[in-house]
């Protein structure tokens, strides 16, 4: 009997903690955080905190679609501020994603080589 209720308690606790994983923010009721205070001091800015819930859902969806390990999506979301989340939700496709130079091949390579020789750009490493 005791064992069964213990088990049940465990199940509830685990379920709750799993639920909690999905919603890492909004722990602090009516407190306005410092970032919002800084945003509010700029006249032109919308307050990211107002739309944070929807934006996080949007970024979560995009992260998943872009191949982020499902086990790490929440960790990555939790480390982003509301302001950053708003920015990603609006234009993740356009923001720079620093990667590598290997993506460039073929004709593009030759064009770049010419530009390099002319000195317009600098992508080929010299020692």
């Amino acid at each position, binding site marked *: 009997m005791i064992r069964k209720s213990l088990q049940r308690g465990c199940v509830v606790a685990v379920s709750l903690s799993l639920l909690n994983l999905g919603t890492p923010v909004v722990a602090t009721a*009516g*407190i306005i955080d410092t970032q919002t205070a800084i945003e*509010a001091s700029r006249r032109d800015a919308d307050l990211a905190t*107002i739309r944070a819930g929807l934006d996080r859902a949007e970024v979560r969806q995009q992260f998943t679609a872009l191949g*982020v390990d499902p086990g790490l999506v929440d960790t990555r979301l939790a480390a982003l501020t509301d302001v950053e989340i708003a920015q990603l939700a609006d234009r993740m496709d356009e923001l720079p*994603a*620093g990667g590598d130079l290997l993506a460039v091949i073929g004709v593009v390579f030759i064009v770049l080589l010419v530009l390099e020789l002319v000195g317009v*750009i600098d992508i080929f490493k010299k020692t």
Partner: protein
Amino acid sequence: MLSATTQPVVELVDTPFFPQRDFQCGPAALATVLVASGVNVTADELVGRVYLPGRKGSLQAELQAASRSFDRLPYPLPPNLPALLSEIAAQHPVLVLQNLGFESMPMWHYAVVVGFDAGSDRLILRSGTEQRAQMSARKFMASWERAGHWAIVVLEPQSLPASAERSRYLEAAAGLEAAHRYDAAARAYGAALQRWPDDTTALLGIGNVNYARGDLGNAESVYRTVLDIDPGHVIARNNLAQTLLDQGNPHAALAEITAARAALSDARLAPLLAHTEDAIRQALRSQERPPP
């Protein structure tokens, strides 16, 4: 271009090097600055934290976010070369975004500037698979400018960047608070107060960190300090009201939120204050209700 620096040659030779693999200059560059700041991590361990497979790259925001996860403060530098050089001179390697292509066909790349030589007008970088890449200041500036002059240092939160500007620094500190890294945020706010005593934003931050840790007594007293300095600080008053409510004093809380709403001139904050007031009025109603 580098001739204006106070020191002719600086190179942070102890900065580690993580040669990048595939498209992963983000994890490599981030590991470089994290390890330099005393974190024990490798580039491979950061791939899952900052790499976006669908974009074959890493976003600037995520490099900053991952730094916070290690209790480090990512500080975006003022967008100019003197600020960058001042950090190198202060022994802080600088993570930069470069556009090695051009405007219409960008090739985004992260690297870490670890030194400069004013004599030969070159910068020294940990970049891609090169441990000691040298780049002329002119070419570096062109690639950096095409990437919006974006650069960060990643520091222990109690140490101020050499190029610290008040509002930039406080925003970075607030990022730690937003990411729930409260101890690190408290250290960053503390450093800000040493440099800029009585800064109400840093004080508000300390109050918020106290509140988040459940230290309501200290939260209350810090919010009151903010209000002593600036009685019209409606955000501190809202937060004081919430704290008083949590301390079981809804009547005092109501007085504060009423004062805050009366003083409010920024409509964007109205829904947040209304939310606090709702919670207070609800508490008052349930107090009035006779026990079942």
